[in-house]
């Protein structure tokens, strides 16, 4: 493919929602289990890190430690829900179950299948973020109603991480290969995106790299702004960053997938 081919505008229609609905139907079958993880995860982290470590840390950036990490926990959950949906789960559907092959024998095309998967990954992010938000607001760790904006925002963050995941899904030879992006990208992001301590604690070059390359950094900036009710101008930059990287990578992942599936 020529370089421009990687950014060809996808040929998509309303049919993307049929792919989304297929995944929703599977999700609804085991809805109780699906709700358990995002419900328990923040509680676990809050007790372990927020309240436990918080006892020694006291305040961070002028807020109680638990309140400092609460929006980061939501952002991490947005990342995990969507990234893992569009890597491991999508790969199983594509490679092992041949679900994509089955769908493209119908009037749907590959572009629609992949965009449907990405929108589903974004939805997973939204579902998990909403559940966590309800737990964290019950504990009065986030401000209402400002924090409700985290719900639509989680869809955008989900889109970015779904698209990143889908790019890997388009190129990995086997499912085990996902260990590389998980370890080399997701784990560092988990630690160095202003999640558990402010970005300013890091050396300048690392701060810069984190802001240039890590979507989670931008997700945390906005989430923390919304959760504390003090949204700054920096959030607009982050929003623009997420929106542009999200759209570019979505388009890239669709073209990479077309190359993989339609040879």
């Amino acid at each position: 493919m020529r370089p421009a081919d990687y950014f060809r505008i996808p040929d998509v229609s309303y049919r993307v929602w049929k792919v989304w609905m297929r995944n929703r139907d599977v999700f609804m079958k085991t809805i109780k289990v699906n709700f358990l993880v995002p419900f328990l995860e923040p509680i676990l982290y809050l007790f372990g890190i927020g309240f436990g470590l918080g006892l020694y840390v006291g305040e961070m950036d002028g807020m109680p430690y638990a309140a400092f990490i609460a929006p980061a926990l939501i952002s991490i959950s947005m990342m995990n829900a969507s990234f893992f949906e569009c890597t491991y789960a999508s790969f199983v559907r594509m490679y092992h179950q041949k679900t994509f092959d089955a769908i493209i024998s119908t009037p749907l095309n590959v572009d629609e299948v992949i965009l449907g998967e990405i929108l589903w990954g974004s939805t997973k992010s939204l579902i998990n973020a909403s559940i966590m938000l309800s737990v964290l607001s019950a504990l009065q760790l986030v401000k209402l109603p400002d924090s409700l904006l985290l719900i639509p925002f989680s869809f955008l963050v989900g889109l970015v991480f779904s698209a990143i995941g889908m790019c890997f899904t388009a190129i990995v030879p086997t499912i085990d290969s996902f260990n590389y992006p998980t370890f080399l990208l997701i784990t560092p992001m988990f630690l160095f995106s202003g999640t558990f301590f402010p970005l300013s604690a890091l050396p300048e070059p690392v701060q810069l790299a984190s802001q240039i390359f890590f979507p989670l950094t931008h997700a945390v900036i906005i989430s923390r702004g919304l959760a504390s009710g003090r949204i700054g101008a920096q959030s607009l930059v982050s929003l623009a960053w997420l929106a542009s990287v999200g759209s570019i990578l979505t388009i890239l992942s669709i073209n990479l997938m077309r190359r993989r599936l339609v040879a």
Partner: protein
Amino acid sequence: MPPIISAMGLTKIYGGIKAVDRIDFEIREGECFGFLGPNGAGKTTTMRMIQCAIPKTSGRLLVKGMEVDERPREIKRILGVVPQENNLDPDFTVLKNLTVYARYFDIPKGEAERRALELLRFVQLYERRDSPVDKLSGGMRRRLMLARALINEPEILVMDEPTTGLDPQARHAIWDKIRALKREGVTVVLTTHYMEEASQLCDRLVIMDLGRIIAEGSPAELIEEHVGSEVVEVDNRPEVLGLIAREGERYEMFGDRIHVLARDPKGFVSKLMGACDLERVAIRRATLEDVFLKLTGRALRD
């Protein structure tokens, strides 16, 4: 009537491999048309080009007058596809597999349910409608694949090795369904490497080998043209070979047996009896298998 599917110089190249190499064929509306060939002949590649799953490298391919690379959505709307490998959705039950698939064709929910149940009766899976698909036997899964391919009431049914790996009962069950569909006017395109399947089901067929079409016609025409009506089977002995050489007959060797495609089988047998002392001479009707082996040779193709 114009052909419902036609290919002209159709070619597919993978890397350097010519999977399909400048083939021409015309499939008529309402017939059952077969692609017969050994492994690697290019049958699956041809089916996947017809169903718009992969782009062709060159040549032309028209389905109902539509170019495959111009109007894939319209083509896929009128096609039912049973691929070589099952790809049922393991996350759903038998019935749900059909209704979810119906949604891809914009079939409304109620109508989808009605069609799905009717099709499950047709393929004898109605009682199993709430089973998860991984609880089904191989034959049941194949029948469910067929039912799924029919959910959009296709004009053309494309089946890639519909019965490979099935036991005889399961195979006959599928054949019955294919015949029933043909009676309803569905055009059936199938691939197979089973001669019996091709002769039982196909009105016309092509034999493919190494990406090329090497013969074409109805099963009877192919047999008549390439083998004649009968085949003489005899033990492989030097004196038999000698006689064959003197008579100038065509033959094929199968280990310790020889198949002689004699011009006058009965006359040849009496000459054989006169010339040599033989115990195991048989004269039998020629089959598509004789044509196939004659044209594609006997080397293994895996």
